[in-house]
């Protein structure tokens, strides 16, 4: 048999599938940190897993537990998580134009629309590869992210008091790690600094969780100003 002949089990992965699979492994693994931090923020193991399986958008999940961990209210946690999820709607528009999914696939494809599946799809030139990249990354990240959230949540539960193990420090680094790659251009840096400042100033005056929402509003307004100046 020629080495590149399709085999029942051993079909070679296409470049898009390979990319999707490596992203799934890398991202899936840090589900461990999400699971552990979710438990440290006061969720039980199954609530942590439910967030990964059902919300399935890392930034929003971290925001949800970040607000609760800081003593914020549940409505504030839902608002912060939803605002961070808005970018997924923008990804969905791109993917809809790129992959043209049939109507019956849209609900499932919507669920798998995240940073990683979008990045894998748009990185391909060929339409079939775009489709394979999206589904490999989407399904792969979903499986591993959910599984490793369970692992992390069980570990977090076994660890007990989060501050002893520096888990509160892990949360700080986790958010910084999510922010870091978005600071390549000048405008997001300005927005991030302004949002940080608004948070610091607002904390003593409003209930926990609210400063994050205020920062989101200021960031949105500032981004509009940036857009007007430099469309």
């Amino acid at each position, binding site marked *: 048999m020629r080495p590149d002949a399709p085999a029942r089990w051993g079909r070679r992965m296409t470049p898009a599938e390979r990319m999707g699979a490596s992203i799934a492994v890398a991202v899936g693994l840090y589900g461990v940190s999400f699971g552990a931090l979710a438990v440290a923020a006061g969720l039980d193991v199954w609530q942590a897993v439910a967030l990964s399986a059902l919300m399935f958008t890392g930034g*929003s999940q971290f925001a949800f537990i970040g*607000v609760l961990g800081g003593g914020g209210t549940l409505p504030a946690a839902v608002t912060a998580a939803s605002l961070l*999820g808005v970018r997924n709607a923008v990804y969905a528009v791109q993917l809809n134009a790129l992959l043209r999914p049939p109507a019956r696939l849209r609900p499932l494809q919507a669920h798998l629309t995240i940073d990683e599946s979008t990045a894998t799809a748009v990185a391909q030139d060929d339409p079939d590869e775009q489709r394979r990249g999206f589904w490999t990354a989407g399904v792969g990240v979903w499986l591993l992210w959910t599984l490793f959230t369970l692992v992390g949540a069980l570990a977090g539960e076994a660890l007990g008091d989060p*501050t002893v193990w520096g888990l*509160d420090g892990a949360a700080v680094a986790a958010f910084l790690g999510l922010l870091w790659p978005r600071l390549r251009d000048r405008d997001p840096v300005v*927005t991030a600094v302004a949002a940080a400042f608004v948070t610091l100033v607002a904390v003593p005056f409003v209930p926990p969780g609210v400063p994050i929402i205020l*920062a989101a509003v200021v960031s949105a307004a500032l981004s509009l100003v940036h857009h007007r100046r430099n469309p």
Partner: protein
Amino acid sequence: MTDLWGWLLAACALAWLIKLSGYLLPESWLDRPWVHTVSTGMTAGLLASLVVTNTVVSGQSLVVDARVAALAAGAVALWLRAPYLVVVLVGALAAALARLAGL
């Protein structure tokens, strides 16, 4: 905790509806440059706010404690292009050590 389940599931439903909206709404509604700019800026702003909240906020007051060491260590790890999981572990280690040192 029942309360938490309700809000949690509502947040999950909202997250899915937001994603689905991009597939169902007319392209011209969402595929505009200002929507891209605002969603990118708001994402950066929210994450920056969450960094601050997790580093120096305790309830309604600002405090400097071991978490600041985690922020500094995490930044150094990111500067050195460490993988995400390593960054998170470095943050935990720094906070644990700073706490041992009495910060």
